[in-house]
């Protein structure tokens, strides 16, 4: 090695080539070449007429050096052998034992280290001449460590051709070597086993049923340029085998008809497989620890971000306010409040996930955000926040008079207050399915219950973290201003974002369920204001509290009953087209040239069959990031032009109100919430998914990447 490098240092490239490429001339059956020893292994030097014998090409490698499998991966070349044989004798191609994954910086090769034997079969015809015969093999290979050195050798094996029943004396050590590697050859998958693959947006989901739970697997693609070789392969054990998630090569334009390769399972079991396309059950329980850890971290981050979301920020404000109030309390009490708040968040997430899991088990096709598809929930939430806003604005003091209503619970002092502030934070956080939470939750919902709980727990901890940190770190608490008259001002100011949230909720109600329900909601607000007036004008009187409670009951009853009478048409009849028109009226942009049509699976199929790319906007009016994306990206003139230029069919799937078909489509893409932007490309089975935050550039780039010839416009531009 050192010697070779010094030669390279001299840059006498030609002599290197000569040295490296120089055939190791040998009249024997073995040769020593740089970094390896190569040998023909014939356990039996007596071959019989009309019979086949097993033999092998053996490499013994210096430590750290490799030779390669038939698909060498990102670099490297497999060994080749060319025979010169007497008449009547033929050699079958060499066979490749299952390889190893050989990482090399950012690359991944497939090959062997230490030693390897490539078995092959020698066939002797009945007509072959009896007596001694010379079998000549020209072998070439590439041996690499960090550097690669090609090598060649001519190997001769002298054998005796005998009669059909000639007695033989086998070399036992050679036979054992041959046997050892013959055992490591992949065997065809048993007929009882089944292998199918399903293309996903990023690659392939390979399912292999062996009849037992499999916890270890590596898949080696027989074809080059199908998979992204260095990507980790995520294994999901199933009751009867495994599911392996594979990333495809970035340049792969059409999915293969078969996924060919070798799968290596625990205990050195190797199977040759040719998986056919099919549907791989998504409900399989994948417990890849790294993936779980990643989702856990992602969910925690998502939880943290939720603190910044407009629908949570006011609650954090609220909580910060109560922290100010408890500024004089002892440290341990503060800490206890932090933990109770965390507990409140945790418990609500667990209740939520428990309910979700129960619903999922019951086969209900519900996704995240479903709460906001319920008018009852919307009305109650809006009412609660409005009432809270009134109190904050100074109309009345909740703490003095009301102790049991939901909203007041959060404003309560003491541990109960902390706990319910946590609960409130969770409830209002739901609609802000912050961008990448979609992925984490989509992942979590397709997991076993334990993983789902873990992910939601991370989400909860992330949401609780900032406030908890504040209570745990006394130094930060000292930064808080001293209590004083400013508190009243602050409290009143906080009512503003609360009212903003109320307005947003009212807007969602109007968007989804129309003016009659909005009117009912506004009447509810009036009733709440009257209740607040009673509480504020005659504070701490039993009768006034009673009147207010009665008003509140009416409001709650109205929230439950009104939707049954006032929703103009049952949810299933309000087409997404109506929603679109309403939305465009509301936004006043009615984008020119944008011909968004309502989504349906059939529509996608129809446009695809016409060879047109299809872009689907999965959206909902309660989804804040959806609205932002539509306005800053999708409705921008340059994006509209790009859509028109690429002849893209535009479909909008409006999930403002629960739609089983849309829920199903989202689940199929591994998502459980919106926004999702899917670009269906002609010739590709699965849509390309765009990020959940769009810029005009992201969309136009995605359109630029449409295959050549998919549209007249892109052909024209590529010919410039």
């Amino acid at each position, binding site marked *: 090695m050192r010697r070779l490098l010094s030669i390279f240092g001299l840059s006498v490239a030609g002599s290197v080539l000569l040295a490296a490429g120089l055939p190791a001339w040998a009249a024997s059956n073995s040769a020593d070449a740089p970094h390896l020893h190569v040998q023909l292994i014939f356990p039996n030097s007596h071959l019989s007429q009309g019979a086949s014998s097993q033999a092998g090409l053996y490499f013994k490698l210096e430590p750290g050096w490799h030779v390669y499998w038939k698909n060498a991966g990102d670099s490297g*070349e497999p060994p080749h052998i060319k025979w010169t044989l007497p008449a009547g004798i033929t050699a079958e191609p060499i066979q490749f034992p299952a390889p190893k994954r050989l990482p090399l910086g950012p690359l991944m090769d497939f090959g062997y280290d230490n030693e390897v034997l490539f078995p092959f079969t020698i066939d002797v015809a009945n007509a072959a001449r009896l007596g001694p015969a010379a079998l000549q093999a020209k072998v070439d290979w590439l041996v690499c460590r960090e550097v690669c050195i090609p090598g060649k050798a001519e190997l001769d094996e002298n054998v005796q051709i005998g009669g059909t029943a000639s007695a033989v004396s086998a070399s036992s050590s050679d036979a054992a070597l041959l046997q050892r590697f013959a055992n490591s050859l992949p065997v065809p998958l048993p007929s009882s086993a089944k292998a199918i693959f399903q293309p996903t947006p990023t690659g392939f989901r390979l399912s292999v049923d062996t009849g037992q739970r499999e916890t270890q697997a590596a898949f080696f693609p027989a074809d080059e340029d199908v998979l992204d070789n260095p990507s980790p392969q995520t294994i999901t054990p199933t009751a009867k085998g495994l599911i392996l998630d594979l990333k495809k090569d970035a340049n792969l334009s059409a999915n293969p008809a078969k996924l060919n390769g070798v799968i290596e399972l625990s205990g050195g079991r190797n199977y040759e497989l040719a998986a056919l396309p099919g549907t791989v059950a998504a409900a399989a329980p994948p417990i890849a620890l790294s993936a779980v850890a990643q989702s856990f971290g992602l969910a925690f981050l998502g939880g943290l971000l939720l603190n910044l979301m407009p629908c949570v920020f006011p609650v954090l404000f609220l909580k910060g306010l109560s922290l100010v109030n408890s500024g004089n309390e002892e440290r341990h009490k503060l800490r206890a409040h932090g933990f109770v708040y965390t507990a409140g968040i945790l418990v609500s997430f667990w209740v939520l996930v428990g309910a979700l899991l129960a619903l999922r088990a019951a086969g209900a096709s519900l996704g995240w955000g479903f709460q906001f598809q319920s008018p009852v929930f919307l009305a109650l939430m809006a009412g609660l926040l409005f009432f809270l806003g009134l109190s904050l604005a100074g109309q009345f003091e909740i703490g003095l008079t009301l102790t049991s209503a939901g909203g007041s619970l959060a404003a309560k002092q003491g541990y109960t207050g902390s706990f319910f502030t946590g609960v409130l934070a969770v409830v209002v956080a739901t609609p802000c399915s*912050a961008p990448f939470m979609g992925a984490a939750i989509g992942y979590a919902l397709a997991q076993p219950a334990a993983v789902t709980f873990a992910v939601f727990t991370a989400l909860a901890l992330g949401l609780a973290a900032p406030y908890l940190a504040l209570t745990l770190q006394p130094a930060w608490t000292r930064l808080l201003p001293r209590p004083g008259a400013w508190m009243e001002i602050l409290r009143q100011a906080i009512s503003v974002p609360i009212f903003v949230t109320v307005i947003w909720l009212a807007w969602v109600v109007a968007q989804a369920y129309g003016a009659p329900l909005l009117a009912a909601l506004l009447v509810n607000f009036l009733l709440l204001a009257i209740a607040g007036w009673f509480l504020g004008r005659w504070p701490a009187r039993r009768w006034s509290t009673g009147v207010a409670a009665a008003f509140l009951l009416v409001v709650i009853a109205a929230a439950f009953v009104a939707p049954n009478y006032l929703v103009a048409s049952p949810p299933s009849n309000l087409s997404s087209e109506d929603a679109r028109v309403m939305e465009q009226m509301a*936004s006043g942009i009615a984008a020119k040239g944008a011909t968004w049509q309502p989504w349906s699976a059939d529509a996608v199929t129809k446009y695809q069959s016409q060879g047109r790319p299809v872009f689907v906007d999965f959206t909902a009016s309660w989804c804040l990031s959806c*609205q*932002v994306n539509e306005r800053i990206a999708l409705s921008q003139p340059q994006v509209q032009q790009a859509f028109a230029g690429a002849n893209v069919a535009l479909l909008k799937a409006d999930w403002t109100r629960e739609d089983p078909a849309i829920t199903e489509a989202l689940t199929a893409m591994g998502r459980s919430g919106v926004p999702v932007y899917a670009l269906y490309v002609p010739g590709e089975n699965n849509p390309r998914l765009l990020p959940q935050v769009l810029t005009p550039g992201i969309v136009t780039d995605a359109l630029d990447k449409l*295959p050549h010839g998919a549209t007249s416009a892109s052909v024209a531009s590529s010919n410039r």
Partner: protein
Amino acid sequence: MASIKNSLGFANLSGFARIVGCAALVAATLPLTVLAQAPRVGGPAPTFTATDSRGQTEALSQFKGKYVVLEWHNNGCPYTIKHYESGNMQGLQKQWTAKGVVWFTVISSAPGQQGYVTAIQENDYMARMHASPTAALLDPTGKLGHLYDAKTTPQMIVIDPSGKIVYEGAIDNRATPDQSDIKGADNYLNDALSAAMAGKPVAVDHTRPYGCSVKYAD
């Protein structure tokens, strides 16, 4: 963004909600957008600037409107040696740069690894080998190599005048280190450039590059 003000809900949310929301959205998806940039055939060629062996800065953006060839190079790799000792690569460089093609030889070997050269060594090598690329880009950090996901030497990439990658992969279809295999090989680079310049689609637009692995820093 102005149109947002027209919508009832958004007008009132516009202040902190939008700023906080947008900041959070951007922060949340930053990793996603970076991942989405993996180069591929038919897609835009990632822009880069690099220093060549003459000490000049070369930016891909300067060559918009021209065909650009990227050739990953390692003077100690037997597969690269095959194409240089035979004069094949130098011939291709002459032939295509004469037709206005910009040809960058890219050296992504890390210091201490095979094929790493200083500017002086590379100029010396090019003079001795009669190599005539437009420039030899020195990429000891592997930044350019990683940007294009270069795997082997020699690996070829062809970028068309609009800045799209039209070919990526091997130089030809004979994955051997033997000079005798150059004759009669199907040269993918020639095929790609000829077709693209004639306004025809590139029939074989990506192949598995063969050769030595690019010697990146570990």
